């Protein structure tokens, strides 16, 4: 089509044309990066904990200074909890995913203290831990009943000895690449060695967003904390989850009233809270993208309307000389397409620059190239949509308009 007349017209409206180009460039640069930010947060939000979240209830208990034997109380609590209707299993563990503490430890393959060290999440748990957390063993076995020890007993030893450990697959592959981890010996609890007796498919850091940074290693020792050093994790029939949640607090306070059940929650609720801020950020970014596109669209409508008004005489003349309505319409559409294209090309450069800034300052990964065509398409579409109304108004101008003005 006739690009040359469009270019020569634009040359006479350099300022207005460049303003549209700048606006489109800025918008596309920001939109590309905002989309990227959103997709990153969505990645975080869809993180798989590997746990049967819908079936889990977490009950933290705090002591207000009672004098009873805490290990004995813990055993009583668990026995009572396991008898609740709908409960499949219950365990006491030192930390849970989405909780508010995390315990990490260095592990060595050899006794040599200066040997290579592997940092991992440090889980300890009593009977039924593996079953309650729904961990899938890909190799080896679960702990045997006689292998569990209470943490108070272990910590009283001068040279604590915990003979068994289960590790996750990530850790197994990192520590023993190309060989079976089961049967290997590692040093992580005190100074004495522990034998790897099992490898589980998936077990993450209690703060999942940190898993990446901490290599995603995780280990479980068969050491049973008391309710003071741990929390109760109960696996239930999802239909009876809320009933169990309510009943659990009553049971624990009945067994020893000097204790308070503090913020007992379903794991799903804990997950929701844990990710609340990321979710808020997704909505915010989404809002910004929409607002940007709307503002840009109205900017295009405004300037295009002005141009149509300014060129009434030209349009009328062209119509009088035989141009069809379609030709006038396409003239404005093509003009917008050209401006958008220049803006988008500049904007893509800007998007990349912005991404570099984000990479250095906010630990963001590089903007994947697929966002560029995505942003380009969005802005081309937006431009065409915005220019449609003014262009149709132009096309509807009667040829006499040229003579009247």
């Amino acid at each position, binding site marked *: 089509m006739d690009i040359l007349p469009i270019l020569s017209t634009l040359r006479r409206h350099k300022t*207005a044309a460049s*303003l549209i180009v700048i606006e489109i460039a800025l918008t596309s640069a920001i939109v590309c990066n*905002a989309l990227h930010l959103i997709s990153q947060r969505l990645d975080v939000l869809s993180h798989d904990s590997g746990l049967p979240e819908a079936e889990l209830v977490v009950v933290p208990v705090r002591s207000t*200074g009672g004098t009873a034997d805490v290990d004995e109380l813990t055993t009583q609590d668990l026995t009572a909890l396991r008898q609740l209707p709908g409960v499949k299993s219950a365990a006491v563990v030192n930390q849970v995913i989405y909780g508010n503490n995390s315990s990490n430890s260095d592990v060595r393959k050899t006794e040599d203290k*200066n040997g290579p060290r592997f940092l991992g999440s440090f889980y300890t748990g009593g009977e039924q831990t593996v079953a309650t957390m729904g961990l899938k063993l890909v190799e080896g076995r679960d702990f045997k009943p006689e292998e569990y020890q209470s943490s108070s007993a272990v910590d009283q030893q001068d040279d604590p000895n915990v003979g068994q450990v289960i590790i996750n697959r990530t850790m197994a592959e990192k520590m023993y690449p190309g060989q079976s981890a089961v049967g290997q010996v590692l040093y992580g609890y005190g100074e004495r060695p522990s034998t790897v007796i099992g490898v589980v498919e998936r077990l993450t850091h209690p703060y999942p967003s940190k898993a990446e940074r901490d290599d995603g290693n995780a280990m479980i020792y068969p050491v049973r904390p008391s309710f003071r050093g741990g929390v109760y994790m109960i696996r239930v029939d999802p239909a009876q989850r809320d009933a169990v949640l309510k009943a659990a607090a009553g049971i624990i306070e009945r067994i020893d009233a000097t204790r308070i059940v503090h913020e007992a929650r379903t794991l799903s609720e804990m997950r929701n809270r844990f990710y609340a801020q990321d979710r808020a950020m997704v909505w915010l970014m989404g809002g910004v993208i929409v607002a940007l596109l709307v503002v840009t669209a109205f900017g295009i409508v405004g300037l295009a309307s002005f141009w149509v008004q300014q060129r009434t005489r030209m349009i009328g003349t062209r119509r009088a000389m035989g141009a069809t309505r379609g030709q006038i319409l396409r003239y404005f559409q093509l003009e917008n397409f050209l401006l958008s294209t220049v803006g988008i090309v500049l904007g893509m450069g800007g998007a990349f620059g912005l991404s570099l800034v984000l990479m250095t300052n906010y630990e963001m990964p590089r903007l994947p190239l697929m966002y560029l065509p995505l942003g380009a398409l969005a802005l081309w579409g937006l431009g065409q949509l915005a220019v449609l109304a003014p262009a149709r108004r132009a096309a509807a101008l009667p040829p006499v308009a040229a003579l009247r003005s």
Partner: protein
Amino acid sequence: MLAYYFDLALRSFKSARALSLLMVLALGLGIGACMTTLTVYHVLSGDPIPSKSARLFDVELDAANMVGYQPGEEPTFQLTRFDAEALLRAKHAKRQVMMTGANVAVQTDSPSVKPFYVPARYTSADFFAMFETPFLHGSGWDAEADASQARVVVISKSLNDKLFGGENSVGRELMLKRQPMRIVGVLNEWRPVPHFYDMTMGTAQFEDVFAPFSTALTLKLGASGNTDCWGNTGAASPRDLNVPCSWIQYWVELASPEEAPAFRDYLVQYSEEQRRAGRFERPANVRLRNVTDWLAFRKVLPGDVRLQVWLAFGFLLVCLTNTVGLLLAKCLRRSGEIGVRRALGATKGAIFAQFLVEAGTLGLAGGLLGLFLAALGLWLVKHSPADYAPLVQMDWPMLALTLVLALAASVIAGLLPAWRAANVTPAQQLKTQ
């Protein structure tokens, strides 16, 4: 003259209502977004104790063993109990305090009140004078109480309201973990933001109970926050005196910022002594950071907040470009009118001023809308899940900044259109009419 231009601006808005509304809306959105994010930024980056932030210092020593040692590394950001007690005894600064955060079960003698947990702080006596806590009733305790492990507490206004209905409770009793304590002071509202003196408990965690550190240790009231241990702790509790664990925040107040180098030398000297005595293994590696440096070091400002500020300004930039374009279109559409004014004797300067006033008026309207949108935005932030959410509020400087920003932005956006308008040649305009 200005009033006349203002009147002209209003007339011009009326003649192009949709276009003007569009500009005000875009400007308002941009300003609103900027002010919302800037206010959050302002609140979080504020100086929590302006009168003293240059004289209060966080103290760090490197007491760790040689495992994994890398020269030049940051030391652990808290102290071991041994070092904290040694420095406190030496009293080398004007004031010094060792402390830890905790959660503690509170009870009264009234059986109807179920025990409940509140955030607490176990600290040595200088805390109150050092951080200038406001007292409603009574006062803090003295070094004598620290030494004798006195059973005393200072409580917050909100706890006092909850337990004693806001009465002066000084002299009354309170149970911490079933141990009776005498209330010696009630604080007035005190919420230093951010919670600078201990950042391991979150930015908006405020204590309800303060008790002497020594008392808390004796009564085994526990502690929470961050504990780093190295080497073999054996069967010992991390709270014991000689255990290689860092968990205590240690702050000093110097008489003036100029004393900092001397105090740092003293810390180096202390480290060397400890090394000679065989306690420290690493070469002396100390840090002495004042409040401002400390906050920067601990990265109080979440990355998301800074990102949002940038995003908002990017958005404002787009809105401004948009406004420039629309203003330009509006000005040029009025070329005829400008031609007539010029022909009747208006100077270029007068036309320029007229259009700048018009842009400014637009900015003012946009600013007011922005203010409203910022209030809405802050309301949303307040109800967001972020842990700083309850702290966020608009203050007068930010309010003023909003209007100034709006005005400045719109005038800058008006420069180009006004200049183009001033350069309209009257002869040509009159001819085409």
